[in-house]
C-alpha cells in the first residue's frame, strides 16, 4: 500500500485570514496529511483547531495560503475530483424534495434527467429512505435529514467521502445507527467510497470509526499526534479495548490543552510581550466548576467531570483552563484539583469572590496591558483600539472573540465597565481600590 499514491494529500499547508488591519489571523500551521485508499481518517481536536478548514482545503472549497494539495500524487488547484461532503448542518435545499435534492447534484454533473432520477432513487434506497422521495427536508427529523445528505453524497459515486461533524445535530441513538451504516457501505471494498475523512469532536465516535486518528491542537491549528487504530471491525463501542483507546485519545487532548508544565501566569517571569490567550469560558462557569469540585473533596477526573455534568468535553477543557490561568485549580495529568486559593474562593461570599477574581485577572498580562493602555488614554479605551492591540499581540486568536471574553471576565470582577453602544471600555468602580 505504501507505494500506492495517496488519494488526497496536504503538504506543508498553512492558512491565514486577513482581518483588515493588523496582522492576519493564523488558523493552520504546517499541516501534512494524507488520505490513502480504503481507510477512514478522523480529525479531532478542540474547537478552533481548524479541523473543518482542513477538510475544506482537502476538498478544494478553500484555498491554502501556503503549501499544496495533491490528488493521486498530482498537484491540484480548485475543487478536488471525487469528493463528496456530508455537512454538519445538512446543507439540503429546503425547496427541493428528498428526491430533488439528490437529483440536483446528478443533473449538475451532466447526467441525463431520466438516469438522474433512477440513480437518485438507488441512493435513497441505499440509505433507507424509500417512501420519503416526495417529502421536503423540513418535514424530516435531524437523523433523516442527514440520511438525505448521505444519499446525496453517495449518489455521485465519490472516491472519497468527507464528513464534517455529521452527527453533531443528530440525536445520540440515531447517530450510533448512522455510523454503523456508513461503515457498512464503506466496507464494500469494490465499491466507492474508497476512503472516508471525517471531522469529529467526540473521542468515542473517532475510536469507533477511524483507522487513523489525527489529533489537532488549537491556536494555530497543527497536528499533534496521529494514533493508528488497529482494532478489528466490526467494533463494539463497549469493548474494553475501544474504551482504552478512547482514554488514550482523552489523554492526548488533555496534555495538549492542559500541559502539566504550566507556563507560569505570574507576570514577572514573562519578560517578552507574549500574552496568554483567553480560553472561551464564562466566569459563572468557573465558579460552578469550583463549587462542583468542592462538593467532591476538591478533585475530580477531567473526563468524568465532563461526562457527569453532561458538558461537551472541549467546553469543559476551556473552563478548566480558565480556572487554571487564575490559579484556582491545578491539573496534574488528568486530575483537576482545587488549589488553596481555589478553596478559599469557593468558600468566600460573592463580594469576596469578585475581589479574588479581580486580583487574579490583574495577574494576567492581557488585562495588565489593557489597563495600562486605558490609563495612557486618560481612563477610557475604545473597542477599536483594544481590538487592534489584541490582533497585534495575539496573532493566532480571533480578536473579537478574545475581546468579548475579556469584557465578560472583566465585568465578572467589576474590573472594567463596557458600554456596548459607545464601544468604550472604562475602569470599574473597584479598580482604584485594588491599585
Amino acid at each position: 500500500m505504501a507505494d500506492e499514491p495517496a488519494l488526497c494529500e496536504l503538504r506543508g499547508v498553512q492558512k491565514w485570514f486577513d482581518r483588515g488591519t493588523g496582522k492576519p489571523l493564523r488558523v493552520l500551521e504546517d499541516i501534512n496529511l494524507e488520505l490513502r485508499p480504503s481507510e477512514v481518517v478522523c480529525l479531532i481536536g478542540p474547537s478552533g483547531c481548524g479541523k473543518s478548514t482542513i477538510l475544506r482545503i482537502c476538498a478544494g472549497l478553500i484555498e491554502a495560503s501556503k503549501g499544496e494539495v495533491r490528488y493521486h500524487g498530482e498537484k491540484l488547484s480548485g475543487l478536488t475530483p471525487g469528493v463528496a461532503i456530508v455537512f454538519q448542518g445538512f446543507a439540503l435545499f429546503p425547496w427541493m424534495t428528498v428526491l430533488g435534492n439528490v437529483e440536483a447534484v446528478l443533473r449538475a454533473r451532466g447526467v441525463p434527467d431520466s438516469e438522474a432520477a433512477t440513480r437518485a432513487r438507488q441512493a435513497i434506497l441505499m440509505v433507507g429512505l424509500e417512501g420519503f422521495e416526495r417529502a421536503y427536508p423540513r418535514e424530516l427529523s435531524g437523523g433523516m435529514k442527514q440520511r438525505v445528505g448521505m444519499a446525496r453524497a453517495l449518489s455521485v459515486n465519490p472516491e472519497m467521502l468527507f464528513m464534517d461533524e455529521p452527527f453533531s445535530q443528530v440525536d445520540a441513538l440515531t447517530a450510533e445507527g448512522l455510523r454503523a451504516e456508513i461503515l457498512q457501505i464503506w466496507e464494500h471494498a469494490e465499491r466507492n467510497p474508497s476512503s472516508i475523512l471525517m471531522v469529529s469532536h467526540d473521542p468515542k465516535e473517532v475510536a469507533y470509526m477511524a483507522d487513523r486518528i489525527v489529533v489537532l491542537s488549537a491556536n494555530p491549528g497543527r497536528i499533534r499526534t496521529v494514533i493508528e487504530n488497529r482494532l478489528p471491525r466490526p467494533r463494539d463501542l463497549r469493548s474494553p479495548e475501544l474504551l482504552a483507546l478512547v482514554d488514550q485519545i482523552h489523554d492526548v487532548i488533555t496534555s495538549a490543552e492542559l500541559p502539566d508544565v504550566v507556563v507560569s501566569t505570574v507576570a514577572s517571569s514573562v519578560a517578552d510581550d507574549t500574552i496568554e490567550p483567553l480560553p472561551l469560558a464564562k466566569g459563572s462557569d468557573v465558579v460552578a466548576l469550583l463549587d462542583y469540585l468542592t462538593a467532591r473533596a476538591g478533585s475530580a477526573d477531567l473526563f468524568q467531570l465532563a461526562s457527569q455534568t453532561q458538558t461537551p468535553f472541549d467546553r469543559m477543557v476551556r473552563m478548566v483552563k480558565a480556572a487554571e490561568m487564575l490559579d484556582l485549580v491545578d491539573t496534574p495529568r488528568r486530575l483537576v484539583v482545587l488549589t488553596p486559593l481555589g478553596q478559599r474562593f469557593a468558600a468566600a461570599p460573592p463580594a469576596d469572590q469578585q475581589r479574588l477574581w479581580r486580583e487574579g485577572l490583574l495577574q494576567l498580562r492581557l488585562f495588565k496591558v489593557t489597563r495600562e493602555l486605558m490609563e495612557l488614554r486618560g481612563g477610557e479605551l475604545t473597542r477599536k483600539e483594544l481590538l487592534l492591540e489584541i490582533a497585534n499581540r495575539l496573532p493566532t486568536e480571533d480578536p473579537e472573540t478574545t475581546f468579548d471574553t475579556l469584557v465578560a471576565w472583566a465585568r465578572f470582577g467589576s474590573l472594567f465597565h463596557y458600554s456596548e453602544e459607545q464601544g468604550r471600555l472604562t475602569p470599574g468602580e473597584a479598580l482604584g481600590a485594588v491599585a
Partner: protein
Amino acid sequence: MWGQANAFLLSPRRPTAWADLLILAAGAAVLFGLVQVGKEWTGVHRPAIQLDLSPWALPAYTFYSLVRGLVAYVLSLLFTLLYAFWAAKDRRAETVLIPLLDILQSIPVLGFMPGVVLALVALFPRTNVGLELAAVVMIFTGQAWNMTFSLYHSLKSVPADLQEAARLYRFGWWRRFSWVELPFGTTALAWNSMMSMAGGWFFLMINESFVLGGHDFRLPGLGSYMSVAAERGDGRAMVAGVVAMVVMITALDQVLWRPVIVWALRFRIEDTTGGEVPRSWFLGLLRRSRLRRRIEAWRLRRGRREARRVKKAAPAALPSAAPATPALLRTGATVALVALGGTLVYGSLRLALLLLQLPLGSWGTLFGAAGLTLARVLLSTVLGTLWTVPVGLAIGLSPRLSRLLQPVVQVVASFPAPMLFPAVIALLHLIGVGLGWGSVLLMLLGTQWYILFNVVAGASSVPSDLRETARSFRLGRWQRLWALYIPATFPYLVTGWVTAAGGAWNATIVAEYVTHRGEIMKTFGLGAVISEAATQADFRTLAAAVLLMSTVVVTFNRLVWRPAYQLAQTRYSLTK
C-alpha cells in the same frame, strides 16, 4: 375574508372536474382580453381621447389599467432578476449599481416622465404603443426598485453551507442561480412583489393622464377615468372609480398574490412561521385540478418502476463536468458596466449643463421649498405614528382582531391614495383648510398604512413570555407600552418609517399641486415645483427640483434612517 367565506368549498378535498373547467374558461377569457388590448395598443394614435364617464365603460378601462400594471410587473421582475444578480455577483458593478439604485428609488415619478414619454412617443409616432409603453414604464418606476433591493439582499445572504454544497457538487452559474439563489430569495420577493404592485398603482392617475407642456397624453384607463371625473367634479363617477379600483385590488390579491405567497411558502428556509399560515382558496382550487394530479401520479409511478428495474445494476462512471462561469458572460458584464458608466457620466454632464442655465435666485427658492416639504414629510410621519401605534398594537396583540383586520388593512394599504384626494380636498375646502396644511393630510392618507402594517407585524411578534412577564409583574398600561411594546416593535417601526417617509416624498408631487374641478390648487413646496415644472415643460426647473429632492431623500436616509436601523438591529433586536 374571501378565504374564510369560501372555506366550505374546500372541505371535500377530492379533485373536481369543474376546477378544470374553470381553468379552461379563465384561459379563454384572458385570451379574449389580450386580443382587445392588442387592438387598443396598435390602434391609430389620436391627439386626444374622449373618456366615457358612464359606469358601463369602467370594466374595459379597469382591464386596460390592469394589463398595464401586469406588463409593468413583468418588466420589473425581469429588471430585478438581471440587476440584482449582476449587483450581487460582480464586485465592481456592485459599487456602482447599489448607490445608483438608492438614487433611482428616491426620484419621484415625474422625474422620469418627460424623458420617457417624449422618447417613446417619438419612437412610435403613429400607434398607441409608444404612449402605452410610457405608461407601463412609469408604473414600473413605482414597482421595480424595492423588488430589486429585496432580491439583492437575499442573494447576498444565502447560507454558507448551501453555497458550499452548490460549489462542491459543481453547479454551474445558471444552476446555482435557479436552484439555490433564486429559490432562497423567492419568499421575500413574493411579499415584496405584492407590496410593489400596490406601489405601482399609486400614480396611476398621473401615469394615464399626463399633461406635458400643453400636450395632453391621455390613455383610456381607470386612472384617467378618475382624473377626468375629478376634473369635472362628477361625484358618482368618482365613487364608481373607487369601487372599480377596490374590486381590482381585491381580485388581484385573491387570484394572484395570495396564491403566489402560499406557493412561495415552500421556499422558506425553516419551519419558523410562528403566526397564521397564509392560505389561498384559489391555489387550492388549482391544486385540485384533476388533470394536474393525473400527470403527477403518473410521473411518480414511472420513476419508481425504473428505479426497481436498475436497482441491482452497478453504478456506471459519472461524467465530472465542472462548468465554470463562461468567459462570454464575464466580458459581457464588463462591456455593460463600461457602457453604464459612460451613460452615467454623459448624463451627469448634460444634467450639469442644464442646471447651469438656472439662475441662482431660483436655487434659493428651491431650497426653501425643499425645507418646507421636508417639514411636511416629517409631520405626516409623526402624525401617522401617533395613531397607528396604539391601533396597530391593539390589532397585532389580539389574534382575533388581526385575523379579521389583517386582510382588510392589506387591501386598504394597496389602494392608491391619490384617488381619494379629490374627495378629501372638497372636504378640506368645505371646512376652510388650505392646501398648505391639507397636503400633510393628503400625504398621510397614502403613507400611514405602511406604519400600521409594520406595527401590526411587530406587535404580533412580541414573544409571549415577555408579555406574560409584564402581566405577572402587574405593569401598568403606560409602563407596558414604554418598557415592552415600543422597544419590541421598534425595528418594525423603523422599517415602517423608512417606507412611509419615502412614500410621503413621492406623494408630495400630487399633494402639493392638485387639479380640482378644473382649477389648479397649489401650495409652496418642492412637490408643487416639480409638478408645475412638468406641466409647463420647464425642464431646467424640473431637473433641479428632482435632483434636489433625490439628494435630500438620500442624505436623510443616510443620516437618520440608517443609524436608526442600526440601533434597531442591535439594541432592540429580539432575535439576538
